[in-house]
């Protein structure tokens, strides 16, 4: 338990670095936000100065940073210029949409990639192996936004098997009572199967797009790790001791191969957080990625800052989980 604590502590400097980088990045954004905020021709220079003062932009940089830190400690991420709403509230509203999509895509990718990688590793050089290689190579070469658009064309325009790729739910359906913000879970809680089906249906295409992107690294790592483990000396020992093939593959090889796969899962999850931005744009998904894009276009720095912070914090949290899972799998970790 103290190891987990120590690991948590070690994330603090990184987190602080993230805050500094985020702060600096958005402060060098071109264009004076105050000018933008006050982009009313009727406003005078004095009005703009007043806005600057309320935003704290007239202070020296380090003081701005201290103020920023203070606000951050109170959970205040600033106010969006474009919407006029507190950034924290905006994100709280949008985060579940992104999280739900990413989690479904991740589950989809893992449940396809790991068996695929295993199948390839157990028969290297076989037809399955070659097929997997092809999929993997094509997979990493597919630009998410192109795949997404082509999938829309094929499954919505041509085949008509998925709903129109706009938003999380058909506009004629009522959202279930908001509990977690995850439509699927909320629908389940409300006992509304129709909404659940509709939400899943709507999510299918964007989730598949993201999963396709994550498939390649996961499959590749599962295959490589499994082949490496199967070729290691302790597998030879187990074979020489006459253990059955099933036991060798599952208890001896798979558990050992899982370690690098879990690490890759963490990386893939972080990639997916980034890819989210593109997928949300393509599918008009009302998540935090789409919001971030808008704020960049509008030079709206507070939401961008918030977005970067949330992303980095999520990533650090995912890594923490990866480390803990690794320590559970492998007794050597942390020694």
């Amino acid at each position, binding site marked *: 338990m103290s190891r987990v604590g120590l690991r948590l502590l070690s994330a603090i400097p*990184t987190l602080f670095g993230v805050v500094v980088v985020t702060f600096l990045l958005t402060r060098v954004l071109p264009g004076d936000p105050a000018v933008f905020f006050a982009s009313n021709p009727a406003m005078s220079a004095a009005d703009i100065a007043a806005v600057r003062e309320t935003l704290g932009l007239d202070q020296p940089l380090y003081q701005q940073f201290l103020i920023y830190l203070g606000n951050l400690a109170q959970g205040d991420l600033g106010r969006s210029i474009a919407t006029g709403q507190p950034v924290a509230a905006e994100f709280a509203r949008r985060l579940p949409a992104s999280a739900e999509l990413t989690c479904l895509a991740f589950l989809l990718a893992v449940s396809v990639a790991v068996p695929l990688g295993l199948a390839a590793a157990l028969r290297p050089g076989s037809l399955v192996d070659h097929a997997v290689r092809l999929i993997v190579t094509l997979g990493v070469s*597919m*630009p998410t936004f192109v795949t997404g658009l082509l999938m829309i064309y094929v499954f919505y325009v041509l085949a008509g098997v998925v709903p129109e790729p706009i938003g999380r739910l058909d506009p004629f359906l009522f959202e279930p009572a908001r509990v977690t913000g995850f439509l699927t879970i909320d629908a389940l809680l409300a006992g509304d199967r129709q909404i659940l089906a509709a939400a899943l249906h709507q999510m299918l295409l964007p989730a598949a797009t993201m999963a396709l992107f994550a498939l390649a690294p996961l499959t590749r790592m599962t295959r490589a790790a499994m082949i490496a483990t199967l070729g290691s000396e302790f597998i030879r020992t187990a074979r020489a001791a006459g253990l059955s093939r099933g036991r060798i593959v599952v208890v001896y090889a798979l558990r050992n191969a899982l370690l690098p796969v879990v690490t890759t899962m963490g990386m893939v999850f972080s*990639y997916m957080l*980034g890819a989210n931005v593109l997928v949300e744009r393509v599918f008009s998904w009302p998540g935090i990625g789409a919001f971030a894009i808008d704020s960049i276009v509008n030079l709206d720095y507070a939401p961008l800052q918030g977005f970067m912070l949330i992303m*980095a914090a999520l990533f650090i949290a995912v890594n923490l989980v990866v480390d803990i899972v690794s320590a559970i799998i492998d007794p050597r970790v942390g020694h």
Partner: protein
Amino acid sequence: MTHPVHPVRQGGLRRALRGNPLNLFALALFALLCFAAAFGPLLVPHDPLATDAAAALQPPSARHWFGTDQIGRDLFSRVVVATRLDLLIALGAVSLSLVAGSALGAIIGYWGGVLDTVVSRLVDVLMAFPLFVLAMALVAALGNSVINVVYATAIVNLPFYIRLARSEVRPRRALGYVEAARAGGSGDWRILLRHLIPNIAAPLVIQASVNLGWAVLNAAALSFLGLGVRPPTPEWGIMVAEGARFIASGEWWIVTFPGLALMLAVLAFNLLGDALRDLLDPRLRR
């Protein structure tokens, strides 16, 4: 059986090509890309910027092989001409991060100490951001221009090269030939330049070749979102973004052809990276 120690052996290239037909395909694809980048603008049938309202949104035909876009520009010409820009951005970004990252990583890996701690911490911070998100923010912060896309792509990739170079140099510090060089009167810089960096070149070059594909994708994705390259410059990401508005109404070609070009370019780099890995990394050779 012991593996061959020396990374590149005679006939290795030929064997790599013969052993895997995909490698030949990748090489051909790469040659095609280079050709399009070098001579594309001279050879294309139409001016990539010329609009023709009468010929807007035409499907592929004998006159317009890839069809036309919403203002009647010839997509084939635009796709071919875009090659140069897309490849240059990727090449520029990757060379920058390869050179700077390897040098920095090798230095901190060799000396360790406070510098190592500081740089490693910074690397941790940079890597805490999802790559694409960081690239987005950097372009936004540095200013919306092509050269800033190159810098942003280079910066987000820097940590990988630093980490790789560092982890390759570290175990080699205690290797016999490094200590022998020290016993033979070589100073630290000479050991680094003559003995360590040449010996860690292979994994770094492999990393770079795989990274090229990613850099092409990254640049296109940024311009897809409206960052970096601006319309009406022919660029694959922008063309996909422009076509996105017409996909729901069935005009598939505007997205498909630039998307395909992008995919083939990335595929070529990824396959070449794999081939290079087979060729240079004796550990993976059977």
